[in-house]
């Protein structure tokens, strides 16, 4: 972690890392909205994504290190499509029509499976991406007084691209409307010709790809280790809820808020209360839930009696 020397720097870095929290939160939000799956395994998906990229990067398919990592990320994303298919078909399809709690339990099982697989496959020692220094130069990008490490430049660009593409699809296309329709009332949507299980597969694919890409950034910042799984959950879940669990744009905002607080207040408090930095997201979540139970952008249900 880069020590921020000035408050401004802390704010910029906070926002930059917030974008990647936003992407993880998007993965979480989307699965909840469409498939009504509260994905406790989000951290483990990020962990697996990081290891998959590591695996492909270590094959050195392309000599150029930057291209190499991009190719690795692409391959990992493609593989995660297969994983999404497996997850939906093998684990969740048998559970259609079951209470939400059953689905959540299944994500717990999924998390255990993914985590167990990574432990057996890669052990528990801390790993880094090959040629990391060439991909993300050590000297930060300097814009005036602000020093921004290159990995955050990647993070911001990637996150903005993902969000832009996603929001366009979700808001403007009939496919997006159909996705939202499924999220609101699957039975009725099915009677109008929307294939529910396909929509669920799409949402799993998006969730996995978003997790893989967050794995790339989180792995670059923290190193690749089982720790990423807890880190992923402790950022994705609060970020998603702060923004409102069913709001994709809220996820980005939640991520930004979280990154900001973590890198300013969190760093400061950590001096006096060691370890509080990892709990700060949850504390922020508790406060937000007290003030706005549905998050900042969450849809307040129209309750009729």
């Amino acid at each position, binding site marked *: 972690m880069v020590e921020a020397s000035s408050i401004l720097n802390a704010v910029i870095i906070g926002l930059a890392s917030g974008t990647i929290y936003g992407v993880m939160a998007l993965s979480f939000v989307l699965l909840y909205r469409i498939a009504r799956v509260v994905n406790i395994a989000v951290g483990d998906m990020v962990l697996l994504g990081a290891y998959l990229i590591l695996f492909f990067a270590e094959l050195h398919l392309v000599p150029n290190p930057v291209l190499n990592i991009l190719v690795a990320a692409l391959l990992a994303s493609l593989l995660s499509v297969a994983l999404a298919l497996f997850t939906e078909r093998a684990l969740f399809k048998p559970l259609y029509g079951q209470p939400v709690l059953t689905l959540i339990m299944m994500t717990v099982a999924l998390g255990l499976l993914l985590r167990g697989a990574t432990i057996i496959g890669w052990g528990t020692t801390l790993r880094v991406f090959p040629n990391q220094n060439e991909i993300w130069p050590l000297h930060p990008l300097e814009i005036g007084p602000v020093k921004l490490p290159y990995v955050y430049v990647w993070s911001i660009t990637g996150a903005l691209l993902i969000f832009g593409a996603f929001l366009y699809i979700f808001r403007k296309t009939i496919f997006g409307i*159909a996705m939202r329709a499924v999220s609101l009332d699957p039975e009725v949507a099915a009677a*109008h010709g*929307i294939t529910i299980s396909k929509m669920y597969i799409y949402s799993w694919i998006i969730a996995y790809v978003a997790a893989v890409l967050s794995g790339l950034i989180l792995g670059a910042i923290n190193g690749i280790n089982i720790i990423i799984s807890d880190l992923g959950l402790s950022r994705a879940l609060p970020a998603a809820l702060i923004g409102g669990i069913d709001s994709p744009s809220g996820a980005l905002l939640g991520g930004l808020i979280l990154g900001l607080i973590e890198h300013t207040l969190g760093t400061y408090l950590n001096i006096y209360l060691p370890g509080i930095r990892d709990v700060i997201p949850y504390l922020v979540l508790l406060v937000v839930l007290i003030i706005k139970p549905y998050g900042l952008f969450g849809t307040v249900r129209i309750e009729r009696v």
Partner: protein
Amino acid sequence: MFISPKLTRDAMPGNFLILNNVEVTFDPFILVIKGVSMEVEKGSIVALLGANGMGKSTILKAISGVIRLERGRVTKGYIEFNGRRIENMMPDAVARLGITYVHEGRHVFEELTVEEDILSGLYGRRKMDPKDALEFVYNYFPRLKERRKIRSGYLSGGEQQMLVIARALISQPDVLLLDEPSLGLFPSVINEIFDIVKKINEYEGLTVILAEQNVKKALEIADYGYVVEGGKIVLDGTPEKLMNNPDVQDYYLGIGRAGRISYQDVKSYKRRKRWIS
């Protein structure tokens, strides 16, 4: 407003939706429909009549495949549409064949706007242009056009009912299965909705199967009626025949032989019965 000429129904004769001795079982072994046979002519309005819980809705759900989402199955008999067996297909596949089911109870997608809600019915039909399709339904439902930017959860009951019909209509299906469109609506609104359904039927040649408790209203627009009781069809015929049937008059229209029984009078009779027993 409706200048297009009435389609001649005789142009395409024949029964194109057939139910033959259909039985429906819900998980694990609850038999709900006990051998129902129906023949529906293209371009007609058919009414399924009967009280709550008698199986009208289940028949519609069996045709549309929605029972599959509720752990139900057609366990005997077959359903044929345009010469093709459709029993136990998943609802989305049935919908793509041109049969759209409208759920009882006005299930709008509350958080979508009216326009998005209608458009959701168009998913997977690439050949249609969204703008034209919207124009087509707004033609029948001008009220929805006025309110197209409002979240559909905020509409009144009648408008929501129109919205769900419009959503079913936008994909231009051949068969519309309407489940209790009049439930909990006010007489004037019911009239309005039934008028529109009749108009769509006449101008578009759309086949409508209607499950209704409001027997009088349903028979006004229907070409043929079936009375469903306890998962079986107990009576069928033209509206005139059903209206004049003394049992139908007694049970469904509330007209006793000596005129309608006042609710005030029911009480003393039943009360006396309670004292005696």
